[in-house]
């Protein structure tokens, strides 16, 4: 490299990541986060092991394109339910964000949850924040190698278990575990287990806050949904400043500048600088500050959930809470309730039967015995439930219209069959050209399972 003239500097446009060593903290919000963690992870790791009527309770069989969720079987045609579920999730996110900022990020996001678990492992093996910082500064020794390799082994084990559980939603987990034990995994199963394991290990072990800061789109657009009446984690500047030891100077505020709030922050920011896009709303700084306030015998809540308006206008707690229920929040709530109700109603009223009517194109219409006019259709009958049914086919719409093929078919559960049907009308009935007719398919043993589908009957001139 050539020598720089003294008035030139080299500025790097990319910077190395600075390792963050979050200090462990106990408190109300930390407990809340652990409760959320247990709830979400019990569901995630446990669900694939549940059985329902002799099959895995939740299984997304991509190969057969059937999605089993407890009592219901969804087909690709039921994609609308997934769309509705995503809309519900989106509105729930809007609602929670409008009320209390990035609570999703802080308490339920897998990135936060797995980072928390990985941090817990790290603390058990490498020790507290200061011990970890010391360990990283040390030169390599046997002890350091043991601790580091122990940590990574524990991380990897958890990651692989996570990968297996994830793939267990798509391949029956009992069969999958059997394959793992027999070392007989299929190439794609092996790939996805490896992929998901690696993603868990990399994101929760190495990337951590980098994911939130640079990869996550939610992080950016959630910030856009926050307004002046949103509960956010706030440092009460008026009460805290100027910082300094308590009682040393009469002017000093409540903040004793112990930097605990910075030490516990998983994204490495100083909440006293105000709301920042890096803040994931985990409330670790609230727990930290409250524990310190207790020790120095100041009232808690120097850092607390508050709104921008409450801080600047010095609103009382009741006033602030009243403002949280603003029109926007009420509108989100109403929409959410409406969509959830519609979703469950639609799901409950769903008929486990679908039919497609496909008109034969080779023959428009033909004249058969006694001058009757015949049209040919192909009925694709999809028995989307799990019980086999005998279905009765009937047709209506034109005077004298009848079925010339056997009206009953047996179809197994979760199976599709295409049935050729011939439909006839008597001579002279029905207008020339196209008329609308209706096919009706009913399960013989369960009249509630009934679907109607329109079709066109053609009468030649």
């Amino acid at each position: 490299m050539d020598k720089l003239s003294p008035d030139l500097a080299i500025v790097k446009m990319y910077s190395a990541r600075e390792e963050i060593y979050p200090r462990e903290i106990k408190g109300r919000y930390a407990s809340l986060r652990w409760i959320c963690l247990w709830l979400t992870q019990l569901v995630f790791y446990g669900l694939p092991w549940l059985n329902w009527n002799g099959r895995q309770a939740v299984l997304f069989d991509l190969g057969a394109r059937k999605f089993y969720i407890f009592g219901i079987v969804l087909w690709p045609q039921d994609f609308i339910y997934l769309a509705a579920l995503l809309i519900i999730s989106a509105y729930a996110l809007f609602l929670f964000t409008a009320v209390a900022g990035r609570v999703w990020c802080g308490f339920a996001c897998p990135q936060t949850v797995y980072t928390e678990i990985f941090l817990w492992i790290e603390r058990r093996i490498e020790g507290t924040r200061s011990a970890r910082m010391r360990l990283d500064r040390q030169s390599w020794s046997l002890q350091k190698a043991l601790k580091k390799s122990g940590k990574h082994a524990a991380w990897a084990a958890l990651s692989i278990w996570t990968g297996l559980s994830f793939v267990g939603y798509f391949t029956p987990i009992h069969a999958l575990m059997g394959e793992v034990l027999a070392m007989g995994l299929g190439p794609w199963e092996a790939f996805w287990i490896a992929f998901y394991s690696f993603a868990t290990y990399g994101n929760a072990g190495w990337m951590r806050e980098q994911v939130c800061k640079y990869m996550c789109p939610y992080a950016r657009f959630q910030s856009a949904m926050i307004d002046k009446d949103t509960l956010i984690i706030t440092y009460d500047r008026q009460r805290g400043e100027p910082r300094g030891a308590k009682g040393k100077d009469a002017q000093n505020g409540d903040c004793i500048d112990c930097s605990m709030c910075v030490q516990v922050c998983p994204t490495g920011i100083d909440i006293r600088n105000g709301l920042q896009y890096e803040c994931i709303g985990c409330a670790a700084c609230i727990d930290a500050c409250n524990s310190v306030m207790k020790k120095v015998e100041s009232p808690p809540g120097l850092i607390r959930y508050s709104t921008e308006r409450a801080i600047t206008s010095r609103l009382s707690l009741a006033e602030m809470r009243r403002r949280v229920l603003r029109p926007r929040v009420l509108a989100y709530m109403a929409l959410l309730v409406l969509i959830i109700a519609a979703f469950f109603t639609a799901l409950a009223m769903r008929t486990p039967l679908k039919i497609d009517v496909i008109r034969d194109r080779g023959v428009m219409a033909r004249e058969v015995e006694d001058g009757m006019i015949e049209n040919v259709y192909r009925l694709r009958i999809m028995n989307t439930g799990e019980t086999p049914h005998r279905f009765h086919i009937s047709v209506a719409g034109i005077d004298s219209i009848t079925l010339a093929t056997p009206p009953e078919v047996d179809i197994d559960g979760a199976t599709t069959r295409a049935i050729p049907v011939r439909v006839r009308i008597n001579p002279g009935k029905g207008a020339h050209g196209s008329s609308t007719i209706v096919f009706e398919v009913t399960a013989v043993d369960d009249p509630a399972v009934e679907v109607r589908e329109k079709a066109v009957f053609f009468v030649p001139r």
Partner: protein
Amino acid sequence: MSDFTNGFWNIYIAVLTIISIIGCGLLLWSQSKVRMEKQPGEDPASVGTTGHIWDVDLTELNTPMPRWWMWLFYITIVFALAYLFLYPGLGTYAGKLGWKSSDAYQSELKKAEAEYGPLFNKYLQQDIKAVAADPQAHVIGERLFLTYCAQCHGSDARGSKGFPNLTDKDWLYGGDPEVIKTTILHGRNGQMPSMAAALGSDKDVENVAHYVLSLSDSTHDPIKAVFGKSKFAMCAGCHGAAGTGNQALGAPNLSDKIWLYGGGVETVMETIRKGRNNTMPAFETFLGEAKVHVLAAYVWSLSNAPSNADQK
């Protein structure tokens, strides 16, 4: 395979691609650091701007991206080069691995064959009539028929003009299971030559048409039929003296009321005048014998087996 007629364009594209990829890498490398002026006495590490200044005092702050981000970028460049080395992507270069989309199709076929082959081969060992009685084979046959045969013969297999009805007992080439299988395997080419010149005048054609219709007792003019009878000798070579057809040739039976192209006088005259040419394609190479076997059983069962009646 290249669609270009001139080899130049392949090289042009290849060179352009390589230059672009390397150019991206160079741009990234050259822009990862900038030199800028610092104020005398200023600490170089604390310089918080990129040094770009517009409109006198509008400076661009340096908010550095994470370094791993830059590495991801380099990884994509390495990936691109490795991909272009291994797979086809650079002009006509076929790639080190020799991967072809047609091979991918073949391997999918092989996989399907490995999965479903044993089932079809099991049926192939059985007599066609036995296969026809097997309910599972019936469902498979029905699926195959709806996929490959229904376009011409109709979903209900009753055919249409020019495409025979497969549900009746009237067969052009014979309705034995083995014959049906042969028909599907190798296809058929039914040809009736134009008889207009051989028969003579248009009047003769009309007379023969009426005679043909009289064979099945369809609507006809008895007088014209009498005149047409002698001329019918020319048709008897294929259709037989009594007009009952010849399955060895695929010559239709004219003494029943089943017509492939229609049984009106005009249509029969048109058939005689212009002849007919009809093709059933061969399915042996496309479907393979085992599937055709199941299909033949299904087609045979349409006009024979009791399973037709209690169609499940």
